[in-house]
């Protein structure tokens, strides 16, 4: 057994240089990154177990859990995967994107350990509160919509987790500060810039979280007399969606990093890519307003403003990345002589490298599933077709479960080699895992969306095939639930395959020799014309197809809506 965590390849100053990326890594940054990644994987295992139980309950042919247990495991599933798996990974990404890419030490490393301890402790508190909740303490699920009461320790845990994440982010901010003081005229590398923008969005979201949870906690322990349901919803979504925007921007940063390392991509325009990140900072959190499009209280003008101009600032940014990332790959590979014609650059790509295949599937599935449905749901009227139906978890499994999770899996596959310097065990499993996971989870997402939009099946519901007190039920949707159930089990198995490779490699993987580690593009000579004159026709075709599919579903959705009876003033 190799104790990969304990090996010490560093020089006297604590630095080592990475043979693949050429980066100078300091142990003060590398060690906390390992810790945060491992913690994230532990959270993923818990969330994955919960996913299996939740899926086997909603697949009512199995109907595993009774209502009370279902809501308990649904809460564990939501918090473990949407929050813990993601946020621990994101802190690791900040440390990689900041100090590591800049070749610096991690400033104030004690803060990283303090933040980690606070986050782990409060995550435990949240899970404990979920575990012991019984009426009048209701399961929080993700949203803990007041005035339905959750366990007081749950709100306290949420507050402490937010504080922990802020503390853990401080060393990152300090490293950016130090870099700019020492090198005021040097631009940050794009990945660092993306990580920096991620952290600004994160701070906005976390601040919103404190504004939400502190008064809610005071209300829950009786220090405040009442809480306004509409206020809660509006405030909650600053963090509720804000955290998911962090996932998005962190994922895009990982896309730039991974397409470069695993695929030989270039940045085709620093100006355009950076401007797109800045658009996110200004607009993406306002887009959280799409959660209250089917609400009373907020005016239609407010809703349409926030979900149009404000959101389109962010949608525009996403469309820019949707082009510039594949185009960077296309140009990078064409100029290295790796493929010609329309799609030769994709055909020649290293598909058997799980770092590359996971990243590519993440980009494609995020765009076509999460992205398109997100735009549709962001239209005020179309939102009423989907609000709180099963199509909503369908959408965010399209963004988070296939998009972000696959990107982070690819990133973790590389982390095993680059940071832990271990070879993957069970290589066949590592190679197959992204295909297996993307395929199974992709079908889960399609089934969830269809169940929601075609049958109007509600989300957060343990038994729609048999509604108490009425002969009416949703049994027409049973076949699609069957599809979802079977593929969800397969997706959980694919998730388990990832954990087996990751944990197995850390424990039993052989130490890698730099020469045989990963694709190395540095030896290839760049040929042909300069980047902006290189053909991007493959990307143009793919992105045009994305817009076409968006247009198609947009038209179909509005026709559906128009067939409904009249409502609204």
């Amino acid at each position, binding site marked *: 057994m190799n104790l990969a965590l304990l090996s010490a390849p560093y020089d006297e100053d604590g630095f080592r240089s990475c043979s693949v990326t050429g980066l100078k890594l300091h142990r003060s940054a590398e060690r906390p990154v390992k810790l945060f990644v491992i913690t994230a994987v532990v959270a993923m295992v818990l969330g994955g177990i919960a996913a299996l139980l939740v899926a086997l309950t909603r697949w009512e042919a199995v109907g595993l859990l009774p209502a009370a247990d279902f809501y308990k495991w649904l809460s564990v599933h939501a918090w473990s995967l949407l929050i813990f798996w993601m946020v621990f990974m994101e802190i690791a990404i900040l440390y990689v994107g900041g100090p590591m890419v800049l070749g610096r030490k991690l400033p104030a490393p004690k803060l990283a350990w303090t933040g980690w301890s606070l986050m782990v402790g409060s995550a435990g508190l949240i899970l404990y509160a979920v575990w012991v909740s019984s009426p009048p303490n209701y399961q929080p699920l993700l949203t803990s919509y007041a005035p339905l009461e959750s366990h007081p320790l749950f709100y306290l845990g949420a507050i402490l987790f937010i504080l922990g994440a802020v503390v853990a982010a401080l060393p990152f901010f300090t490293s950016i500060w130090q870099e700019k003081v020492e090198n005021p005229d040097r631009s940050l590398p794009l990945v660092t810039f993306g990580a920096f923008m991620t952290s600004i969005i994160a701070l906005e979201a976390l601040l919103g979280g404190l504004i939400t949870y502190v008064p809610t906690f005071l209300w829950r322990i009786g220090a405040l007399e009442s809480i306004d349901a509409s206020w809660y919803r509006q405030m909650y979504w600053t963090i509720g969606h804000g955290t998911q925007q962090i996932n998005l921007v962190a994922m895009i940063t990982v896309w730039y990093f991974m397409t470069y390392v695993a695929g030989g991509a270039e940045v085709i325009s620093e100006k355009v890519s950076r401007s797109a990140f800045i658009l996110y900072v200004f607009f993406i959190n306002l887009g959280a307003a799409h959660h209250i499009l089917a609400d009373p209280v907020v005016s239609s003008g407010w809703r349409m403003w926030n979900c149009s101009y404000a959101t389109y600032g962010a949608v525009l940014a996403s469309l820019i990345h949707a082009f510039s990332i594949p185009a960077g790959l296309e140009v990078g590979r064409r100029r290295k002589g790796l493929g010609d014609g329309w799609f030769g650059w994709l055909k020649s790509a290293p598909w058997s490298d799980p770092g590359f295949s996971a990243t590519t599937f993440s980009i494609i599935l995020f765009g076509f599933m999460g992205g398109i449905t997100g735009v549709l749901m962001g239209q005020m*009227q179309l939102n009423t077709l989907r609000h709180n139906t099963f199509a909503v978890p369908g959408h965010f499994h399209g963004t988070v479960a296939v998009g972000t999770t696959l990107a982070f899996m690819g990133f973790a596959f590389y982390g095993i080699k680059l940071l832990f310097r271990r070879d993957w065990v069970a290589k066949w499993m590592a190679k197959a895992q992204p295909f297996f996971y993307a395929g199974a989870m992709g079908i889960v997402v399609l089934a969830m969306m269809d169940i929601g939009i075609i049958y*109007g099946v509600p989300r957060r*519901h343990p038994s729609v095939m048999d509604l108490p007190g009425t002969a009416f039920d949703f049994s027409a949707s049973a076949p699609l639930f069957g599809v979802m159930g079977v593929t969800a089990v397969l997706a959980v198995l694919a998730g388990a395959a990832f954990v087996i490779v990751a944990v197995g490699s850390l424990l039993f993987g052989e130490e890698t020799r730099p020469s045989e580690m990963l694709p190395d593009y540095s030896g290839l000579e760049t040929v042909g014309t300069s980047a902006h*004159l290189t053909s991007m026709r493959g990307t143009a075709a793919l992105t045009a197809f994305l817009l076409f599919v968006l247009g198609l579903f947009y038209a179909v959705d509005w026709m559906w809506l128009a067939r409904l009876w009249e409502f609204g003033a």
Partner: protein
Amino acid sequence: MSSPIRSPDGNWWDNPLASTEKKWLGASIITAVILFGWMFGWMHIGDQNPTGRTYTTSSAQYRKQVAAYKEKATRTEQGLRPAGRDVYIAGLQFGFDGLPVVLEAGREYRVHLGSYDVQHGFSVRDEDDLIQQFNLQMLPGYEWVVPMTFDDPGTYRVVCNEFCGLGHSGMQGKFVVVEGGS
């Protein structure tokens, strides 16, 4: 070549853009304008909008309003027949006060949505054609008046689709829509 993990050299801001990328930027901006224009335009030309006046209220106050409305309504075997064009519905753990209600097809009603306790969902569908459905939120402390006109007679099922407690899955009701003038 430009790498995402190295500081870009020189004045990168002035580096030329690829013509394909410029075209994509244009297409993206046009897409955003169309999305906005259509959503805004539907407020004027469309018949399905999640809009209506909101009034501040309290659970006690709303209970009184619903009770007064039910007092005036006629009880039938199929459900309440409202006396006028106002229809009151309240979500509560775990049911809908005011449902079932009997409405006439083709007549516009002012549907008042509110809650006696926690947040609830108002999810309505045609029993015989499940794809014909839409969803609104019901909040305690607020009364939302959404005009509604059912075109065709039939049974329209309502389920709560916001988690409201352990009995959530049993929270349902219905609109019975009959021919106008019957």
